[in-house]
């Protein structure tokens, strides 16, 4: 429906590609920005959640009588206060989601909510929550895919029958489903190969680690309406979940998005929101529920741990099992689709299993699934490069996916930038510099689909000619700045005159999740189109003013100009000031389910130095090249690249959930779950590659996720080349690396 510009022939942007100060920046450096725990409503009380101390147990009874009589307590709820979705015949996914939010018959992970309290103060609520007496029948637990798939493993759900296998199993197990991607003939492929390598890789669950814990404020009215404030990546999806759980229509709930203190995928699903809503309904007062960090680690989404076996490049045979947590839904399907998507591989068979275990249900984490399988595939590629004595970048270039190649998951690639990211690294100062003394150098690449989806934008022109851009995607990393730049570029006005606003769910139409690296692409698309509608309207109004034909009016540099030059140009402010006389307020809304997301690729290069006395790995130099399609605000593109890399460094070297034998988490805090700090790191050098996405008016691809795909493999490859120790298990912590170094020395 719209003409797509070719960005390569439109280099003369005035605003797109510049680095103005972000519109929400001032509030964030002065402490004014309101995150969800910052909101205070009149008459508001505080909530607290009682959680399971066991990894797997049957709930025998819950006694809330003592808690209800404690000082300040206004409401106590358990699973029984929520509609029974199973009884109501709701879809299995909804029943499971309801049981995730609050347990009914069984608890399936330590930290699983069993009850909640609202009281005058948070301390009173916490004390009352601790006074709720739950009698449990403790059951044996399964914490890993190996345990959960073993013969005789404790079964978490007695109705879980493995999907997508023939014949359909007759008994329940912990394997929720099987995913397969295949093409060609494996035997033929392997027969044609000179070298065949195979290894088993494992990764541990890691947490997204956003600094802001989950929080929600709910205000339920007697007429059934609920006002909700929370920080999330998906106000509409969490609204829908909350509506199902508390038994109302989604439109009865209004969600006002708060500022979001990090998410990385972990804030795409509901946790405390339905609980806050139900507490408010029962207490008949506004209720705020704020998680503490312990609760965040215990009860919110880590990503999957996994086991993988792997093949080689002319043919690839991959077997994967991913932890889903307590309910089905690991990213193993995405892992199967992305596993070899950087390359053109003629023969492959990729099989993945989604396995439930007694841990919190996994949540999306930046390119969910892809980094886990890339640790195996990209590590094995490096072993292959070493086995045939070939430069690791040349090996990748010789096999790289490019335009016209069929992706392993089906579609034929349009123009993509895999080759360009490899070339950017090959030609970088870093790669051309000698490996520093005592260091090892590693390379790895990564792929992520990126997505489009539903977005809507309204552009309003104020009477002074300044512009508001209203849309529905929470700003998790600077997207307001990009929306302002798009509008400034389209309308030809100074970016300072554009105010982006992220609206509540009553004010803006349904907007899909801030995730999948889709906001700059999709929200950007609808903002651009709404601005074009505004421009057309402004030209019509100028034509009316001048009593001329529409095609005699151009919109240039923020003003209407008559092609003849005989009329004085009409600025946006001039037209806005007389809007009442030319057709009323100037406003346009554009809505689209945006298609045509452009795949994202990243290639990364790292030098590491390993202390062989301690097994500690130091990141000495790091360079990342990523195809952004077009960088709208380059600083925030670089920021996404750098942030993804550093999360990957943490995943590679330190981060893991450590469980005790009784199934409880041993490190639910930032002291023992150690994410990278400033002194662990060098600067992260960035090369923004721009191979325009042919399906977007500005060539945008989406940049948020792919940066986390290569780091674990790149670092493993560098460690291998530094120490001759190939690690196949994450994290590559000092104790694990030291053990490998000792094994090496014992061998030699």
């Amino acid at each position: 429906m719209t003409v797509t510009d070719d960005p390569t022939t439109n280099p003369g942007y005035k605003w797109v590609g510049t680095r103005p100060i972000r519109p929400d920046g001032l509030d964030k450096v002065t402490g004014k920005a309101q995150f969800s725990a910052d909101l205070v409503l009149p008459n508001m009380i505080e909530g607290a959640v009682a959680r399971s101390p066991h990894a797997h147990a049957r709930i025998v009874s819950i006694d809330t009588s003592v808690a209800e009589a404690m000082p300040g307590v206004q409401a106590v709820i358990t699973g029984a206060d929520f509609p029974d979705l199973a009884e109501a015949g709701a879809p299995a996914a909804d029943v499971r989601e309801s049981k995730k939010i609050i347990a009914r018959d069984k608890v399936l992970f330590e930290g699983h909510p069993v009850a909640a309290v609202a009281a005058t103060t948070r301390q009173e609520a916490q004390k009352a929550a601790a006074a709720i007496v739950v009698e449990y029948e403790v059951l044996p637990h399964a914490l890993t895919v190996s345990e959960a798939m073993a013969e005789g493993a404790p079964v978490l759900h007695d109705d879980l029958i493995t999907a997508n296998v023939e014949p359909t199993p007759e008994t329940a197990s912990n394997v929720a489903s099987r995913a397969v991607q295949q093409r060609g003939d494996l035997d033929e492929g392997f027969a044609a190969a000179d070298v065949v390598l195979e290894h088993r890789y494992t990764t541990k669950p890691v947490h997204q680690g956003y600094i802001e814990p989950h929080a929600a404020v709910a205000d339920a009215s007697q007429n059934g309406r609920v006002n909700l404030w929370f920080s999330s990546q998906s106000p509409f999806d969490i609204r829908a979940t909350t509506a199902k759980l508390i038994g109302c229509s989604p439109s009865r709930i209004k969600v006002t998005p708060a500022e979001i203190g990090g998410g990385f995928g972990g804030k795409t699903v509901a946790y405390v929101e339905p609980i806050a809503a139900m507490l408010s309904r029962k207490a008949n007062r506004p209720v705020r529920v704020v998680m503490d960090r312990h609760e965040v680690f215990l009860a919110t989404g880590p990503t999957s741990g996994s086991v993988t076996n792997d093949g080689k490049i002319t043919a690839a045979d991959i077997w994967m099992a991913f932890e889903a947590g307590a309910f089905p839904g690991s990213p193993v399907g995405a892992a199967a689709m992305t596993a070899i998507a950087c390359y053109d591989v003629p023969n492959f068979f990729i099989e993945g299993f989604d396995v439930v275990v007694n841990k919190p249900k996994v949540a999306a984490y930046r390119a969910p699934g892809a980094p886990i399988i890339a640790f195996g595939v990209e590590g094995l590629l490096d072993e292959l490069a070493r086995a045939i004595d070939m430069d690791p970048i040349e090996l990748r270039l010789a096999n790289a996916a490019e335009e016209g190649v069929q992706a392993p998951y089906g579609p034929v690639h349009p123009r993509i930038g895999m080759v360009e990211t490899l070339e950017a690294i090959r030609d970088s100062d870093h790669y051309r510099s000698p490996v520093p003394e005592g260091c090892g150098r590693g390379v790895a690449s990564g792929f992520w689909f990126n997505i489009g989806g539903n977005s809507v934008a309204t552009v309003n022109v104020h009477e002074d000619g300044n512009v508001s851009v209203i849309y529905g995607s929470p700003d998790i990393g600077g997207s307001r700045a990009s929306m302002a730049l798009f509008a400034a570029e389209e309308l030809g006005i100074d970016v300072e005159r554009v105010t982006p606003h992220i609206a509540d769910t009553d004010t803006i139409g349904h907007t899909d999740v801030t995730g999948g690296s889709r906001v700059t692409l999709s929200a950007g698309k609808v903002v651009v189109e709404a601005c074009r509608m505004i421009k057309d309207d402004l030209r019509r109004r100028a034509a009316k003013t001048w009593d001329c034909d529409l095609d005699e009016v151009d919109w240039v540099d923020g003003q209407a100009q008559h092609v003849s030059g005989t009329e004085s140009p009409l600025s946006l402010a001039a037209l806005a000031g007389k809007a009442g006389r030319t057709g009323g307020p100037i406003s346009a809304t554009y809505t689209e389910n945006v298609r045509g997301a452009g795949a994202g690729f990243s290639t990364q290069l790292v030098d590491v130095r390993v202390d062989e006395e301690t097994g500690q790995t130091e990141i000495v130099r790091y360079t990342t090249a990523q195809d952004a399609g077009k960088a709208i605000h380059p600083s925030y593109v670089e920021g996404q690249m750098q942030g993804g890399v550093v999360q990957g460094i943490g995943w590679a070297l330190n981060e893991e959930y450590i469980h005790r034998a009784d199934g409880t988490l041993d490190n639910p805090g930032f002291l023992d779950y150690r994410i990278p700090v400033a002194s662990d790191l060098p600067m992260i050098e960035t090369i923004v590659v721009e191979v325009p996405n042919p399906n977007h008016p500005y060539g945008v691809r989406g940049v948020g996720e792919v940066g986390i795909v290569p780091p674990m493999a790149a670092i493993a490859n560098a460690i291998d080349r530094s120490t001759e120790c190939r690690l196949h298990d994450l994290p590559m912590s000092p104790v694990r690396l030291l053990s490998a170094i000792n094994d090496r020395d014992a061998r030699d």
Partner: protein
Amino acid sequence: MTRVPVSCTINGHEEAFLAESGESLLNALRDEVGLTGVKEGCGTGDCGACSILVDGRVTCACLIFAPEAEGHELTTIEGLADAGHLHPLQQCFLEGAALQCGVCTPGFLLAAKALLDKNPHPTETEVRYALAGNLCRCTGYDKIIRAVLDAAADMAAATGDAA
């Protein structure tokens, strides 16, 4: 529940508030004084999101009891800008895109101020170690470190103080 009166100077103003004896200064600043720019990321002193200055020293507000603030001078993010003028650190964070989600930003700015007050010409390594108690999960720290170094340079240039 015993609530004790606490008097201290916050952002240059005398303030008095009531706090429970076992309440953290973090909670008191947020809930009693209304300074919600002080963020809770962990409540255990591991993330630095609640960093404030107590008599000029960077301190996790979650690790001290509210009554311990009695008689001391506190600076929170709300007091970093001077009479409407941003502190050079705030300006450099904005210009250098040194924040993404922004929830760790108040803590970083105060930790960085404590550093520059003591050491106006830090090296990159000194900045990295001075900020090692503050967690950021969005940025990878690169742009934060650069912003602090830029602010140090700007402040030196403004005072004619050669590095």
